[in-house]
């Protein structure tokens, strides 16, 4: 891997248990700043669990235990003095199905600011516009900001969710199969957007779609389950290397479609 890149997220010996079941096993990898890192692998290999470990969303489920270390900018986010609210502002998340709140378009994007107690109308309006512009949605919604977000198409809703995440000014954006519920054109728009966003943000994306990983990401991590169904990292490197000359035969098997 390219050593000149600055490391943003550093994962060391990460184990995650659901109750007694080991869901991901001993993951160690470094995610570089201002780049797109894709996590690929078959269903149930712990991709989403891994992603949700990066903003501690796994903790919303009962009985989840996390071992190991995840450092963002050199700080372990699992150390006891970490403020979860601050962490999640810094690490935004976009989900598999677009999940805008049943509020207006404006209020969706403003939500993150409002819960921070920001009341300054002008500042909120500015941030909402900027975030919608960055998410490449402004031109489509600028005349109907106060209409319900649920009236938008699926692709627009997903870009709205991205705008909503951008509004709280994160440095990292986690995307959990962000295009799996969208049609091909909406998918391409999301991918274009990701390429633009990586100039400023560190993006980690989980995807089922290998072509998508190949098209959009700079680095790819391939996960697979072992005989106990625990997800583990098989291979990690430059996307072009993973897809053209994988080192591990299991990676090659997966990307050439032999299983998964």
């Amino acid at each position: 891997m390219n050593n000149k890149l600055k490391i943003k997220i550093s994962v060391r010996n990460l184990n995650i248990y659901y109750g007694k079941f080991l869901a991901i096993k001993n993951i160690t990898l470094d995610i570089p700043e201002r780049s797109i890192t894709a996590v690929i692998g078959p269903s149930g290999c712990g991709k989403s669990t891994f992603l949700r470990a990066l903003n501690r969303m796994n903790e919303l489920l009962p009985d989840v235990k996390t071992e190991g270390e995840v450092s963002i900018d050199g700080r372990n986010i699992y150390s006891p003095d970490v403020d979860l609210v601050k962490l999640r502002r810094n690490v935004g998340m976009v989900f598999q199905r677009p999940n805008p709140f049943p509020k207006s378009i404006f209020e969706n994007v403003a939500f993150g600011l409002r819960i921070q107690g920001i009341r300054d109308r002008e500042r909120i309006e500015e941030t909402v516009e900027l975030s919608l512009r960055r998410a490449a949605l402004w031109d489509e919604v600028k005349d109907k900001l106060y209409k319900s977000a649920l009236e938008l198409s699926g692709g627009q809703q997903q870009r709205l969710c991205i705008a909503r995440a951008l509004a709280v000014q994160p440095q990292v954006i986690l995307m959990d199969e962000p295009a799996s519920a969208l049609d091909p054109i909406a998918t391409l728009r999301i991918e274009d957007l990701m390429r633009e966003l990586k100039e400023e943000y560190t993006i980690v994306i989980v995807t089922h779609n290998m072509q998508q990983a190949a098209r959009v990401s700079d680095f790819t991590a391939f996960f697979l389950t072992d005989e106990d169904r625990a997800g583990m990292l098989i291979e990690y490197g430059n996307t072009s290397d993973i897809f053209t000359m994988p080192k591990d035969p299991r990676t090659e098997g997966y990307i050439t479609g032999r299983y998964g």
Partner: protein
Amino acid sequence: MRFKEKIYLSLTALATLIIIGLLSYIIFDILKNGIGVITWEFLSQPPREGMTKGGIFPAIYGTLVRTLLMLVFVVPIGVFTAIYLNEYGRGSNFSKWIRLAINNLASVPSIVFGLFGMGFFVLFLRLGAGLLSAALTIGILTLPIVVVSTEEALRAVPNSYREAGFALGATKWQVIRSIVLPQALPGILTGAILSVGRGMGEVAPLLFTGVAYYLPYLPSSIFDQFMDLGYHIYIMTTQSFNIELTRPIQYGTALVLLMLTLSFNIIAIFIRYRMRRKRS
């Protein structure tokens, strides 16, 4: 096989018809005998001449006030309990026990609530027999309705909304307050209205907690005794010195009570219907 099918169809249809028939008969009977009694005077005047003439205004007033008072206690406690069960204590043993307790509460005979209300609110807490004690007693009886319907409403809010909120750095209470509760509001309202409909018609819990046979004045504080529609029907049919003479009043009172509870239920159905349409 065809024949068997027909038998089951007839059986189920018959059962349904019996229910509809009974309900229509009750409503028709009360309407037929009660509608002529209902005048402005009947609704706005107190009883006169040993309760053989005049109106039922104090009973309407007492019923409405004690029911509203009940709402004031039941809605916050019920809603917060449901929030705890569904949002904070989900899956914990503690909430399992609370849920069990609430389900059991719903199956306690209402006269037992009356006795409890007398022992606890009237005597132990020294609230005396009056509107407040009665409202609290009825409140315990209707609490399960509010808790269960609020829980249902909270459960219907997709988890993805909560996740989105948390991922934006919202605290648990912020997620509940600004995402979950607004979504659940119609369901919570429905529960509150159903509890009103239920609480309004209850008589047994009032017997020892503040209802009065007859009062020459309206209650002026929440510690005063009060008259009540359901209880009024009961005494007019059992305690009146001339049951035949007061029969029209009995029917009229029953009709008023029926209309009140029915209208609350219709409001609840309407809200639920609008909520469903909004969702789809």
